[in-house]
């Protein structure tokens, strides 16, 4: 298998892995029930890997496929707009952060975790027309940072393990 077909096959596989990780995350009990929205963000391991090995366009494509599948399987259309906002802002800022060259994959992942939460909070503030929701961001900044560290380390491990695999 050569070139485009190989790449397409791998990206499809990556989308499947990201989808499975989303499902695993749904199964995990909520870490803090008092504050909604705290998640570890397992699918971001795949997105970070793709960002480093394939680039932002392919990462965005896989992210979009995952979101569509997750919405059909466990979500509802109302939640899709939150998912898109989180995923889009997160990927955009991670790509910028990777490009600027100041951070390792862990730093990029921290930015991804925090900005994912920020995107969702901004949409909630707009849709519900209630600015006060913004204070959730305090807790979500902490959870995004902590989750980002672990996801970044996992992403680094995957990148290292796949170093010799050529696409």
């Amino acid at each position: 298998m050569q070139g485009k077909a190989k790449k397409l096959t791998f990206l499809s596989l990556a989308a499947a892995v990201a989808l499975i990780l989303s499902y695993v995350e749904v199964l995990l009990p909520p870490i803090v029930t008092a504050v909604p929205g705290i998640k570890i963000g397992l699918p971001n391991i795949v997105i970070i890997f793709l960002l480093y090995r394939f680039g932002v366009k392919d990462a965005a494509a896989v992210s979009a496929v995952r979101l569509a599948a997750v919405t059909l399987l466990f979500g509802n259309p109302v939640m899709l707009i939150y998912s898109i906002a989180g995923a889009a802002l997160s990927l955009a800022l991670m790509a910028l952060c990777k490009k600027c060259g100041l951070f390792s994959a862990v730093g990029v992942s921290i930015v991804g975790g925090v900005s994912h939460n920020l995107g969702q909070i901004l949409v909630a503030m707009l849709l519900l027309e209630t600015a006060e929701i913004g204070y959730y961001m305090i807790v979500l900044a902490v959870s995004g940072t902590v989750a980002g560290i672990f996801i970044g380390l996992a992403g680094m491990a995957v990148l290292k393990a796949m170093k010799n695999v050529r696409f």
Partner: protein
Amino acid sequence: MGTNDRKKIRNDIILAVVLLAVAAAAMLFWHFGKVEGDFAVVLIDGVETARYALDTDTEVVIHTDNAGENTLVIAGGKAYVGAANCPDLVCAGHRAISRVGETIVCLPHKLVIKITAASDAGGVDMAA
């Protein structure tokens, strides 16, 4: 490990510490800057539909679009959602709120319950 990698890891740590410090500062500011509120205000799709005094214990069912139902309970000066028929039940799991500016949000029902002070005339203030 090259010096460039070391520098990146140092920057990662600075990034994490700065984010956590900002959050901690905001949390302290929030904790000490807030006062107990007087009303639980019900907003559906951003529009105020009702308000209940926190000093009177009560239990009301809030009806939202698409046959949504959330039971608002006010007890001991705090407000919480006792039961709801939304899919995620995040609102029902939320801790009780009593300070000005605190909210309980039910995203599926576009419902916000927010605490305000008596001096707040009501309505939505996006500049807050």
